[in-house]
């Protein structure tokens, strides 16, 4: 039973627009509003109002970010040249030198330890073999430091790229596979690293939440996501960084999760990733 008293008291219209109604409640409300001009008016108003709030909030965030950047530039421009250089030097120190300095400190510790060992060795307390071992450890530490610096630079580059808006994001619409065989859906990797969207159509019976496990052709787990909920189109959408996928075949196993029950298979989706053109 759904009447306007219930719609009003339970804020059904707002909750429907925000996608917060249960599937059952949404179904009842949809059957009701199909022939109810008053609820349709309320729905259109609620949508319009929510759109307005979100847009205004988005504009505020953009304005705030721009104002902060301008304030920083203005503050820098007011400083004298020597102070500007000092700020720059501090920024470089914080961004680049400080982490490297910490690693160098560790190397210094190892150097000192090695020197101590050498002294002890000269005094006949340590064998030459142990000193050699320490030298090897020192070399390993230096290699680790170099690798860490490379990884840091690469991560910073990826982060900068991920923060950029991306056009033409590849979107893969996947239906559950009914049998074995080669995947019919193919995805060509983009020439530059970016995001890939997988849209999975889930068949009923629907579960409160789902988990997804992505495996490569050898069955190795590549990625796993949990506590995923269907959108209003009964689909699950996943955004994955393209760097996660190498050319080859992949399967996505989707399992439905219901409280107090074992995870139940809700579909298997397959696709083939082709190398960038």
């Amino acid at each position, binding site marked *: *039973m*759904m*009447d*306007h*008293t219930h719609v009003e008291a339970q*804020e059904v219209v*707002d909750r429907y627009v*925000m996608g*917060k109604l249960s599937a059952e409640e949404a*179904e*009842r409300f*949809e*059957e*009701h*509003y*199909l*022939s*109810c*001009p*008053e609820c*349709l008016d309320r*729905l*259109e*108003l*609620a949508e*319009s*109002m*929510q*759109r*307005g*709030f*979100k*847009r*205004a*909030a988005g*504009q505020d965030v953009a304005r705030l970010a721009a104002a902060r950047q301008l304030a920083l530039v203005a503050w820098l421009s007011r400083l004298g040249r020597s102070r500007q250089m000092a700020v720059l030097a501090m920024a470089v120190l914080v961004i680049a030198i400080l982490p490297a300095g910490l690693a160098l400190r560790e190397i210094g510790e190892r150097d000192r330890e090695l020197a101590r060992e050498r002294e002890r060795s000269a005094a006949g307390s340590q064998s030459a073999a142990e000193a050699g071992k320490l030298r090897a450890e020192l070399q390993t530490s230096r290699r680790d430091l170099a690798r860490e610096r490379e990884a840091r630079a690469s991560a910073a580059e990826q982060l900068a790229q991920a923060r950029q808006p991306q056009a*033409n*994001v*590849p*979107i*893969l*619409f*996947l*239906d559950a596979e009914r049998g074995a065989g080669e995947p*019919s*859906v*193919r*995805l*060509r990797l983009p020439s530059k690293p970016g995001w*890939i969207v997988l*849209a999975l*159509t889930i068949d009923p019976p629907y579960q409160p939440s789902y988990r997804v496990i992505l495996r490569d052709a050898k069955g190795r787990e590549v990625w796993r996501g949990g506590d995923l909920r269907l959108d*209003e*189109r*009964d*689909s699950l959408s996943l955004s994955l960084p393209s760097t996660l996928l190498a050319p080859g075949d992949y399967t996505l196993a989707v399992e439905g999760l219901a409280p107090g029950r074992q995870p139940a298979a809700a579909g298997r989706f397959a696709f083939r990733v082709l190398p960038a053109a």
Partner: protein
Amino acid sequence: MSVDAVYQPDEAGIATDLVRRIAAGDAAAEVSLVERYSRGLLYLLRRLGAPPELAEDLHQETFRIVLERLRRRELDEPAGLAGFLRGTARNLMTAERRKTARRRTDADSEGLESAVHPAPGQLSAVLLEEEAAIVRRLIGEMPTERDRQLLLRYYVAEEEKESICTALGLDSLHFNRVLFRARHRFKELLVRFQERQGPAAHIG
């Protein structure tokens, strides 16, 4: 499904009457059915994600299927006509999505172009801006900072009513009052804007 008798006549009774008359070959009943459910069905299809043109097509297709079925045979539960219409529309939309998915078997540039959501038209863009402007005015008219926070937390952060009331130390009655006034004022300002713009000023 029964609805409040003050606002709307008995849906079950009307649906049963329409189903029986259509099965008996009454063409006027077919017109009444389309008039009664047309707007709601179109809204539902848009809500399910159909772009305007597709929504129009599926809207017509839903009525075609339902009317052909009703002409052949009555429904087992004539009162469930709305459910039958809703189910048919949803199935058509699902089939359409599957069809689109099959067409896009490779992430080629042509497929991607068609997957990109079209930018809003000029009029829609103006309306979207106006909605944001009305919201700013609305927030500015709120008598207290607490009421402003209430609206922002409800509409932007989509927090639950209970958690907002707890956080702001409000009772449910005050919450409802603020929301009611805000909705009323938003509608007032929106209608005023739409009147200035003419009949086309609606975002579909």
